[in-house]
């Protein structure tokens, strides 16, 4: 038994060593290998994206005070999810839950009644202010799993800058995001917004960043903007609007 276990462990280590050696020796000759991602990229290419999304989802549940918003049993009310992200309100839903009583359908399903009361809080509280730091480890894990998850980077920046009001942290997130995603238009746009807001209206620097980003988009599609992805095209449109807005005289804005 012990001999089999030792042989299995030996085979696993040897297989891992061969995989790492193949990847490192011929990294440039393997088109499927994502450069810079290491052995993890080879083994779990799609899994990394899924894990990263799951981490962002977890951060979202932390924002909602631990409630999984995709789980119907975990919150018994309708939400305007987009609107919620702009406030740190506290709702008292105790009345809505009909706490301690069977609701429609629960009389026939006691399991649902138990789940609703064990897994749903009496109050729906959002993270706000400095407390929002609780979300940062999940964003960190998300971008470690998939450094090209631009949504994770920009949301982490939003949490640090807008919610925590921690400019230094927001700057660190943005710097790392740029380093990992030098071609991302969204991150460039985020940097422009940060430069304008954080720099108290430094329009010259903001214009420079936006113009660079727009030329990058131009290079990406060879001048044919209709060939940009829907997401990039939308970012370009927003960047042009932003650029036009900051070029207006301050009285006209």
């Amino acid at each position, binding site marked *: 038994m012990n001999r089999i276990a030792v042989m299995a462990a030996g085979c696993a280590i040897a297989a891992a060593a061969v995989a790492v050696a193949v990847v490192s020796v011929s990294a440039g000759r393997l088109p499927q290998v994502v450069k810079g991602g290491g052995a993890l990229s080879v083994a779990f290419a799609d899994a990394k994206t899924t894990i990263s999304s799951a981490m962002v989802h977890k951060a979202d549940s*932390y924002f909602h*005070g*631990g*409630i999984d918003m995709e*789980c*119907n*049993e975990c919150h018994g009310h309708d939400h305007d999810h987009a609107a919620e992200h702009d406030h740190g309100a506290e709702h008292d839903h105790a009345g809505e839950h009909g*706490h*301690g009583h069977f609701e429609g359908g629960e009389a026939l*399903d*006691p*399991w*649902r*009644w*138990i*789940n609703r*009361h*064990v*897994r749903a*809080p*009496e*109050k729906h509280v959002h993270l706000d202010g*400095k407390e929002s*730091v*609780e979300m*940062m*480890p*999940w*964003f*960190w*894990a998300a971008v470690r799993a998939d450094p090209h998850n631009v949504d994770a980077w920009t949301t*982490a920046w939003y949490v*640090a800058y807008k919610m925590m009001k*921690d400019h230094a*942290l927001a700057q*660190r*997130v943005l710097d*790392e995001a740029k380093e990992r995603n030098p071609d991302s238009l969204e991150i460039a746009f985020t940097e422009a917004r940060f430069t304008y807001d954080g720099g108290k209206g430094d329009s010259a620097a903001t214009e420079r960043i936006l113009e660079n980003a727009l030329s990058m988009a131009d290079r990406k599609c060879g001048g044919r903007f209709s060939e940009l992805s829907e997401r990039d095209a939308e970012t370009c449109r927003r960047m042009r609007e932003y650029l036009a807005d900051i070029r207006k005289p301050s009285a006209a804005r």
Partner: protein
Amino acid sequence: MRLFIRQAKALVKLSFVELWRRNDVFALLVLAVALMVPLSLSSPFGAAGASRYLDEAAILLIWGFSLVIALGTGSRLFPPEFESRTIYPLLAKPISRGALLLGKYAGAVAASWSALLLFYALFAGSVLLRGGSFSSELAQGVVLHMAFVALAVAVSLAGSLVTTPSANLAISGIALVSMFFFGRRLPEYADAVSAPLSWLVDLAYAVGPHAEFFDMRQRLIHGWGAVDAAVFFAVLLYAAFYVASLLGFAALALKRKRL
């Protein structure tokens, strides 16, 4: 009655000694330390002050480890006795099969609870060291977790009398872990699939071991407060009923087993 208590006491002591002598708990503790220490030393993006993710990781480890211990302890109660034929001198003591089953089950649960309480004591210590505090939901969480452990031991004990040890561990583990993570969503899954499969999902929802009822992790991590007393006792009642049913089934299986 006095004889039964004496027999049960001896069996409980035996299970205790067996679990702690096997060093599984210490191996799991070392693993927990190896996972938690680097995690607690990290500061994501250089931001200080986040602690809920540490609590979440620690409690998830406690759940995982307690399940491993409960399933391992429950599944090892009878098969080694059959294999090494020590069941014959054991039953010749004299002790009835029912008393043997109850005594062994009580011993396995007590031993698993002792490991669980050690894990929670270490968790509480780590939270207090970080300057955190607890409220009433911790006590409820621990009690419900203990009820879950009792249920998991009963599941693996019953399984050990009708299947092989490896199959039992696999089936019990899959059933409990699946219910823990997806149990509450089974009605949604049943609605999403067609007739014969939806009946199976509905059946699993109706009779499967609802491990998710005992999961107070989010309440502990995010400070939601304690659950209603009515709900709390309903979950305990569910556990008691489920354990009694499984032990009844195990007693029947043991009674019919050809030794």
